[in-house]
């Protein structure tokens, strides 16, 4: 077959699509710049940047699962309660019964999977609206967390478990003074790898006759990407290096990005959200997949609960309250559609970061929790309005 017969994405469409993708990223940078100026540079101080990552890791982790749920056309209101409940279970297992950390860790993830399965069963096979099922779950697990903690905070956790959140990757080249060389190197390697793969994919597309972005644009984009990653890696490296949780988070983002864009199962999930009946008549097992997205959400909520508990070093009955709102907001700010079928992992992550930077920046500025919520609400509404407006054009 000749090059000519291969479909070319229209030039205008290409630029438009990419503008939409980068639009989100540009908003994030604009917000960061704003707070960087307003806080006299506190926002991007190495210590604060590390804190920013730690504070938002659990939101990002849950946003990955929530994105899949929203893409299938559902919602999960119970994630905050599940996270809190699993944190409580972890505390009971490790603090009260002294069960070894790895064993307790796995048990907690299983508990999350079970909870997700229980909720997913009603949603997928009994066709009960997810809003109702997970609203019930939200109450149930909030109550159960309170019950098994007997209304008290339980802690502290064993130090090995705390490392999940407060630990940093080991330094292989000590003696570089204040700079954590390993972290910087990992950042640089990651940047090179990303640029390399995008160059490879560009070349591959070009060899199939697909129109690719102009070379100059590509070089500029790659240079910016490289610079930004190395810059942040440098900042992180000048504090205490890469936090463990950032490594986990990055791996999960890469995994879910891959699953949603490149795999059969990912495509099927989007098909369910796009048109469930057409998907099912095309041989897609819509019920089973919907069920599995809830199981997946349960596991990720459990992981988030563990990360959060490890960070606080204690399990409190109130842990997780309101997380679901930040997580859902992150997905919608990131361009997911409430009608299902549309949404990207990258978008959800950027959405979570926008929420995180705003939380952090406003706290540094001393804005009270009251107006913080008002502003966050307006940003959510504004972002979705902008997205709807863009789609109409």
């Amino acid at each position, binding site marked *: *077959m000749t090059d000519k017969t291969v479909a070319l994405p229209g030039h*205008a469409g290409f630029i438009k699509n990419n503008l939409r993708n980068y639009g989100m990223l540009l908003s994030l940078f604009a917000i960061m710049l704003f707070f960087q100026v307003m806080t006299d540079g506190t926002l991007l101080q190495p210590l604060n940047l590390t804190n920013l990552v730690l504070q938002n890791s659990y939101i990002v982790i849950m946003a990955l699962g929530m994105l899949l749920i929203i893409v299938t056309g559902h919602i999960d209101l119970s994630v905050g309660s599940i996270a809190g409940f699993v944190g409580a279970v972890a505390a009971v297992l490790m603090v009260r019964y002294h069960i070894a950390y790895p064993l307790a860790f796995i048990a907690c993830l299983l508990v999350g999977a079970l909870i997700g399965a229980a909720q997913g069963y009603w949603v997928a096979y009994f066709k009960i609206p997810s809003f109702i099922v997970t609203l019930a779950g939200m109450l149930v697990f909030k109550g159960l967390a309170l019950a098994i903690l007997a209304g008290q905070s339980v802690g502290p956790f064993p130090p090995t478990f705390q490392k999940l959140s407060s630990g940093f990757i080991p330094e292989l080249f000590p003696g570089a003074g204040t700079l954590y060389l390993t972290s910087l190197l990992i950042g640089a390697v990651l940047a090179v790898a990303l640029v390399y793969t995008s160059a490879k994919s560009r070349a591959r597309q070009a060899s199939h006759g*697909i129109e690719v972005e102009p070379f100059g644009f590509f070089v500029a984009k790659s240079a910016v990407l490289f610079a930004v990653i190395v810059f942040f890696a440098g900042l992180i490296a000048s504090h205490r290096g890469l936090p463990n949780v950032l490594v986990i988070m990055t791996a999960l983002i890469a995994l879910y990005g891959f699953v949603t864009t490149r795999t*059969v199962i990912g*495509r099927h999930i989007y*098909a369910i959200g796009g048109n469930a009946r*057409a*998907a099912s*008549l095309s*041989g897609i097992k819509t019920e089973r997949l919907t069920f599995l997205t809830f199981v997946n959400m349960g596991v990720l909520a459990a992981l988030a609960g563990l990360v959060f508990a490890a960070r606080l070093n204690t399990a409190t009955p109130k842990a997780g309250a309101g997380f679901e709102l930040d997580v859902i907001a992150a997905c919608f700010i990131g361009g997911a559609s409430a009608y299902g079928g549309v949404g990207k992992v990258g978008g959800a992550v950027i959405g979570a970061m926008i929420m995180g930077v705003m939380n952090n920046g406003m706290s540094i500025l001393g804005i009270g929790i009251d107006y913080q919520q008002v502003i966050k609400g307006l940003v959510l509404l504004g972002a979705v309005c902008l997205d709807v407006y863009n789609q109409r054009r």
Partner: protein
Amino acid sequence: MTAILEMRGVSKSFAGVQALRDVNFTVEAGQIHALVGENGAGKSTLMKVLSGVYPDGDYEGSIIFDGEERRFRDVNDSEALGIIIIHQELALVPLMSIAENIFLSHPPSRLGVIDRDTVYRRTQELLAQVGLTEMPDTLVTDLGVGKQQLVEIAKALSKRVRLLILDEPTASLNENDSAALLDRLLAFRAQGIASILISHKLSEVARVADRITVLRDGRTVDSIDCRAEPVEEDRIIRSMVNRDLAHRFPQRTATIGAPVFAVQDWTVHHPLHRDRRVIKGVDFEVRRGEVVGIAGLMGAGRTEFAMSLFGRAWGERISGRIWLDGREVNLTSVAAAIDAGLAYVTEDRKELGLILDADVRKNITLASLGRVARQGRIDDMSELRVASEYRNRMRIRCSDVYQVTGQLSGGNQQKVVLSKWLMTDPKVLILDEPTRGIDVGAKYEIYCIINELAEAGKGVVMISSEMPELLGVCDRICVMNDGAFVGEFAAAEATQERIMRAIMRNKEIDKKVLQGDLRP
């Protein structure tokens, strides 16, 4: 006679695609003006310009209504002048009553409280005008599609209509309901209401239209004054597609082989009323290279039969046996049916066939992603290659395979659905109303594809409500009525009359059973 509407030199383009080029279109007062053309010819776009969906400034040219140039900012502006458009997809709220639907936007009210007596009385008057005897508080969901269409017209009448635009009003109506609807148009003409009728059914157009305008590729190519000259279907079709359709159906010499698909004693119950038998112990067979038609009226059980075969996608308490290629199979899921070599092209492509928001490529590969994936990972280059191949082979008109499917015309959407099923490489294809709502040219292409499939040795089952189509395409026609086959004809001996008689004879028996004259 004076012109009530004149559209002069109207042009409109979308992102580089010219949808309308310098169209001139005139409707005389009290005239029924039919607008025909292939899907994508620009009929709907022209009507959207007229009704203000595309506001002034979005198009070139001018609209003169009642002797004055008009610049509509939105639909309200055109409605205020009495230009009312009834879209193909009805805009009724199913769980509201007829009266509530008719007076949905501006119910007669006093101080914001709805005046129910007036609503009720006015609704009765309006229903009488469109020939409906239903009570105004009947829920719309309890009406058939034909009556819903009439309610939609009654709604238009409630708004002092001067020019009524109907976009394929009879597409989903049976013959009786269509005839009733067309009679209404004639009655309105007598009252001085002009209508624009968009339709693919040339026999209807010939029956009621005073003038027929043909659009092709966004231009007016022909305009026939039906009172001055005879209406020749061939001339209209020729102008529509610019190709002489001496044969509306492509020829094929059938080479029929061994049975590829056989069904025995197939019984299906209704999913909600589990005691009701919908398909009643049916036997059915398709041979290799054979095209078998299933004729019948709406509600005869044809779609239910097909969907229950297709991995039990419809119905409860299903029993019976299926052989594919001589091997007995037990198809308990759609995936199993696809694997066994069965494909079912759904009747309703928008609701059941396509993901309209997804691009052409994703729709084509949806049912057979495994063919372009390795270990669950999609090879996007091979996916693109396959999708492009189908795009060329089926001549899907789209800017590229990344175009969103919802933007394509009906005929091209149908080709996308067909591509999806051809990619699963089926042995047997069941096509449920494959040419519904698509234009003459696209229909011809679909028939050609059906012929190619039969020639490639596949078994093809075609469910259709258009009898000429069944007669033109099929080797054998089975007639279904009330969940059972009531007649079967070889192509040579089948005629519309005989098929209809097979259906009616059965209906009469039913009637006698009900009246107690005959024991079943």
